[in-house]
């Protein structure tokens, strides 16, 4: 039966994330962007909150319940609302834990998951995106070939968060029998992490190119999931990105709304002018529209039914809407929106990334 109300438990998760976003992420966001760095205290508090451990089931040392994409998108919207860049840093280990849960064998889960459920934050990451204008997640150029009992991986990756400090990198590559993901441990010969990338947005989180030259990993480094499991992982990535986009859009909308109610022009508040008021009402409608598309896609994913169409459409809708909304937020502030004293330009830069981001399977 159709229902738009999260469970009490989900509502609690959402509220917890909302306070973390408001009290910890947002106040640190501007400085983190300017300094290209996530403060240690934020990493610690995110860890204390259980952002990673909650994705790991109890038998493996975490305290996560059954994985739920719906709960995941509720959480991601709030974190995106707080700060996208720092959220991506804090959530990076989930790029390994979530795929393990989707596609890993019990042995693989037992071996790797407890590593990320310890006393403190352990960096981990995934490498999907490749540095080419026509990058296509469904046709990777990175390849893995069977040689003896091992796999040999070759290719170029980029936009890999925390690659320089990651304990393990989950590398996506094409094989003779379809796309696969391989756990590559830190220090494996043939892996070269390049200089930190300089991007337009998400500046606080360190991203790197990763060069893979005949990287040899054992057979059991390959996640055992089949093609269908792999596709669902990509679906999860898309809906997660879309959820973050809802959060960023909402942040920009609220900022612009509050500004418009305080800024005076022609003897009244600019929010009292239809030109501004209607921009704001459109933003509000679009934020709800994108959120509902995200919820529906996540629900579909959780139901076990094919969800590629819903997740794909939600991602495209949300990345476009987030861009339009953040752009309009800058516009509402006029010249002030262009100045880095205000947050809206940061959200516009971050929102531009959503169409490019891929491979963020974190729900």
């Amino acid at each position, binding site marked *: *039966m*159709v*229902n*738009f*109300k*999260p*469970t009490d438990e*989900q509502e609690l998760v959402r509220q917890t994330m909302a306070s973390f976003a408001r009290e910890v992420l947002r106040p640190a966001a501007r400085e983190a962007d300017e300094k290209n760095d996530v403060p240690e205290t934020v990493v610690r508090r995110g860890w204390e909150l259980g952002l990673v451990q909650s994705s790991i089931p109890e038998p493996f040392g975490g305290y996560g319940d059954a994985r739920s994409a*719906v709960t995941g998108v509720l959480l991601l919207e709030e974190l995106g609302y707080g700060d996208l860049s720092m959220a991506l840093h804090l959530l990076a280990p989930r790029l390994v834990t979530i795929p393990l849960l989707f596609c890993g064998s019990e042995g693989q889960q037992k071996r790797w998951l407890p590593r990320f459920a310890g006393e403190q934050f352990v960096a981990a990451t995934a490498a999907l995106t490749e540095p080419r*204008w*026509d*990058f*296509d*997640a*469904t*046709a990777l150029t990175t390849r893995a070939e069977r040689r003896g009992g091992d796999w040999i991986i070759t290719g170029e990756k980029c936009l890999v968060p925390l690659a320089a400090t990651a304990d393990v990198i989950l590398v996506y590559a094409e094989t003779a029998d379809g796309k696969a993901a391989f756990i590559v441990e830190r220090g494996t010969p043939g892996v070269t992490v390049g200089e930190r990338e300089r991007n337009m947005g998400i500046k606080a989180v360190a991203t790197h190119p990763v060069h893979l030259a005949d990287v040899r990993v054992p057979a059991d480094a390959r996640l055992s999931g089949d093609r269908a499991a792999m*596709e669902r992982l*990509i679906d999860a990535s898309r809906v997660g990105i879309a959820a973050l986009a809802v959060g960023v859009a909402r942040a920009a909308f609220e900022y612009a*709304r509050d500004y*418009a*109610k305080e800024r005076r022009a022609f003897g009244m508040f600019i*929010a*009292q002018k*239809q030109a501004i*008021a*209607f921009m*704001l*009402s*459109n933003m*509000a*409608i679009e934020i*709800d*529209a*994108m959120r*509902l*598309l995200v*919820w*529906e896609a996540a*629900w*579909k994913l959780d*139901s076990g039914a094919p969800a*590629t*169409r819903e997740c*794909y*459409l*939600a991602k*495209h*809708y949300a990345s476009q809407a987030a861009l339009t909304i953040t752009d309009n937020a800058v516009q509402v502030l006029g010249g002030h929106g262009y100045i880095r004293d205000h947050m809206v330009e940061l959200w516009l830069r971050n929102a531009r990334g959503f*169409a490019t981001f891929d491979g963020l399977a974190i729900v």
Partner: protein
Amino acid sequence: MIDFELSENATNQQRMIHALAEQAMRPIAREYDEREHEKPWDFLTMVWQLSGGNPIGGGEKRPKEGPSERNLMMCVSIEELSWGDAGLYLSIPNSGLGGAAVAAAGTPEQKERFLARFSGGKPKWAAMAITEPGCGSDSSAIQTTAVRDGDHWILNGTKIFCTSGLMAAEKSEGFVVVWATVDKAAGRAGIKAFVVEAGTPGMYVTKVENKLGIRASDTATLVFEDCRVPHNNILGSPEVPKTTEGFKGVMATFDATRPIVAASAIGVGRAALDFVRDTLKEHGIEIRYGVSTHRLTALERDFMEMEAQLEAARLLTWRAAWMMDNGLRNSLEASMAKAKAGLVVTHITQKAVELLGPLGYSRTLLLEKWMRDAKINDIFEGTQQINQMIVARRILGYSSKELS
């Protein structure tokens, strides 16, 4: 718990009404678009008998316990009917908007007196008359007057754009709910709604409009010349309050009707989208979900955009209906749904005509008709702009004085 699966009840009803739309509406859709002002009596009578005069899809009355699905099911059903044909859907005999006003603001005695008739006998319509030649969206500027004369009210004025006005006022034993002012100086507070029975002396249909679309549905001009209605036909209190609460109460009926209009819009949009998808499929073109965006054709991009927009509108609509079913105030969400759906289907149907080129533009197919039909949803039951205004006031916390 967040859930997007329709209940079994709703799914069954959806299936049933879809069959009706496909078998009884589609085959006559073009004909009654071309033969404007003629009524498909066979179809109307059949639906009247089928539905027992209830708004189709209303389902059960609100249950005493547990959540109701009434409004949601209504939206699901109306999407199907409008998928069949929006003009025919609008012309279906039932208690309609007039009945909604009676249900919302009438006393138990009035409900019995005015609504019981819809459960049997010959097909009947009830219409709502608000708009005037000099005022549309600004319904507080109504010029039609109601003056008390003993046991009666005397109505004078002209109403336009009254949906099913001809059927309600002259062609059935229905009624028209007329908005009039009892005290012009009081502004909104002086506006009251009166039930005028079909055939009441002094009420005349003077014109039935020629329209861009929804041609199977009549849109009437009603003139009231010293039209006497019994005193107890006024909905709500005859007192003129100091506040505008009464007016707000009347406006609140829109909270229920806007999701329904949005659902109807979505049905038209889906008709166009389904047709385009089927046509492409016949020619071996499948929409590829999941591939990298730079490899998509322009056609695929357009189609996916239409599809996502329509789904977004549907979810906003379902949410507004679901809130109503769960006793939550939904003025904001109802206006969001209506604003989004009206605009989205206007664009979708226009794009659909474009995508199929000369075939889309031809009157041999229904695409051009759907485009004409869709546009009304961006206008009636609060224009796009009025609904944007309502949303804006809500999110900004502004009164109508602070944002106009």
